[in-house]
């Protein structure tokens, strides 16, 4: 009897220890995204523009103790120091944004045009990530995710992604993470439409954007 108990207990313990590590992390921050891919007049993509809206609890936490001219109203100026902290902190995480042109990784320069706004109790961080060099490519793929899952990203239900100034031959489609049990968003038709030969099933857990120009 004891022998059996011993054989059961040790693996159980091992499993628990393993669960401790492999689970990586759990989010305390939820972000609802609206993103854009910006193009230059010559048809080359110049960078990614993000508008990330944080969840209510985190928004309150982030603005705690901030001095404002008018109580309870945060102007862009009031929030400027916080925006600075945000982008500096995000740099360490590559802005959670990964881009590829024709399968080749694209680098980003430091963000520009960043600011925060506080509306309806939620903080939204706007920033633009310029590509190291403008790219002309028929296929551009974007992925937005936190590999350590401290931040839970999700595209907004409305207007999640736009192409700005793109050649008319370009089309964008998005894929939402669905393997993630925390996300209750149903698997959209768009997701299946976007499943082409170049997309890989294994990366279904990230928020993906496929831009295809014909």
């Amino acid at each position, binding site marked *: 009897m*004891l022998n059996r108990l*011993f054989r059961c*207990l*040790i693996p*159980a*313990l*091992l499993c*628990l*220890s*393993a*669960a*401790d*590590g*492999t*689970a*990586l*992390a*759990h*989010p*305390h*921050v939820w972000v609802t995204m609206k993103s854009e891919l910006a193009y230059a007049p010559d048809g080359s993509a110049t960078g990614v523009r993000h508008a990330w809206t944080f*969840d*209510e*609890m*985190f928004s*309150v*936490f*982030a*603005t*705690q*103790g*901030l001095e404002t001219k008018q109580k309870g109203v945060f102007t862009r100026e009031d929030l400027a120091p*916080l925006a600075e*902290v*945000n982008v*500096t*902190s*995000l740099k*360490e*995480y*590559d802005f959670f944004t990964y881009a590829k042109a024709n399968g080749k990784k694209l680098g980003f320069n430091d963000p520009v045009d960043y600011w925060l706004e506080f509306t309806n109790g939620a903080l939204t*961080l706007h920033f633009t990530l310029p590509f190291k060099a403008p790219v002309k490519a028929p296929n551009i793929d974007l992925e937005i*995710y*936190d*590999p*350590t*899952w*401290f*931040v*839970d990203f999700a595209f907004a239900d409305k207007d999640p992604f736009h192409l700005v100034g793109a050649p008319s031959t370009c089309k964008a489609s998005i894929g939402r*993470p669905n*393997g*993630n*049990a*925390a996300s209750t968003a149903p698997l959209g038709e768009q997701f299946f439409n976007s499943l082409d030969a170049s997309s*890989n099933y*294994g*990366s279904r*857990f*990230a928020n993906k954007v496929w831009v295809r120009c014909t």
Partner: protein
Amino acid sequence: MTSPPRCRSRRPWLVLVIAFTAVVVAAGLLDVALAQTGPFGVRPSGAPPPAPEGLVGWLLAKQAEFYRALSTTIRAAKQDGSAVVGLLGLSFVYGIFHAAGPGHGKAVISSYLVANEETWRRGIVLSFASALLQALVAITIVGIAAALLHATTRTMCGTDRVIEIVSYALIIAVGVRLLLVKGRSLLSAWQTIRHQPLPVPVGAAVTPSDHLHHDGRQDHHAHAGHVHGEFCGHSHGPAELTDLTGPGGWQRGLSAIVAVGLRPCSGAILVLVFALAQGLFWAGVAATFAMGLGTAITVAAIATLAVGARAVAARFADQRTGFGTLAIRGIELGAAVVIIVFGALLLGGYMMSERLVVVCS
């Protein structure tokens, strides 16, 4: 004296299994710890990692669900005081799920209990005490920094960071201390084996072996520092007796409580700040304690399991031959190493417990 019948020699493979398990536990934990290398270490490249699935994924999903419901419930409590009851329930359940998910607290407490030959009762007390401390630290930080000083998030992040470093350093200190004590015990167990008569050839009857052992010179020598243990094994060496199960044990326990409980849960801090902003700080305080209670229950359950596993292993290790003792000491030493590795990885930023990215850089 003659051994009771249940003390008959165990098969050597059992000892091997135990020793092997010790190695696997240690190596497994190491592996797991290293695999956690996040943005601070080697950046994962290529495809994003799959979201956690199965039981862990479910735990995390539930946890996220409860956590997100907290803010709505706090808001509701502002209008209707009775919603606080719901808030407490939600916080409690969140705590249970939260502790079942990732976090170094369980691993350190379990390893500590295994290494330190502690009782399950003590494991439960340690779990509850560290969870209570964790809640108190969160309340103190938010109470002083946010409520009284109106400090910014940045200041709070700084405070949190300092506490974090102290806590991780303490974890390493607890581990190193155990390693030293256990290293000595292991050496002592090893020496006992070396001084024992050569093993009797396989197939020899058990009785002559016993006879040899008990009538031989070793018997007298060994008995100088021996105590007959609960499992009819002999605990070797005086060090562990005075050092590990003596009355001073609570002070050592305190170091583990502080090491694990000093670092507040980010979730609790967020809830407290949010409650404060709604003018319901007291509700946040109550929620934090409820969360701590939930956390303590899960950690205590896991700690009890760890203590149980160790007791079973001890039972199977025939400590009379010395090899069993050696195996047990090996497990303990491994557990001490695990604590040090956890502490070092956390301190070095290679493994993160909970970090509020975006605002805390």
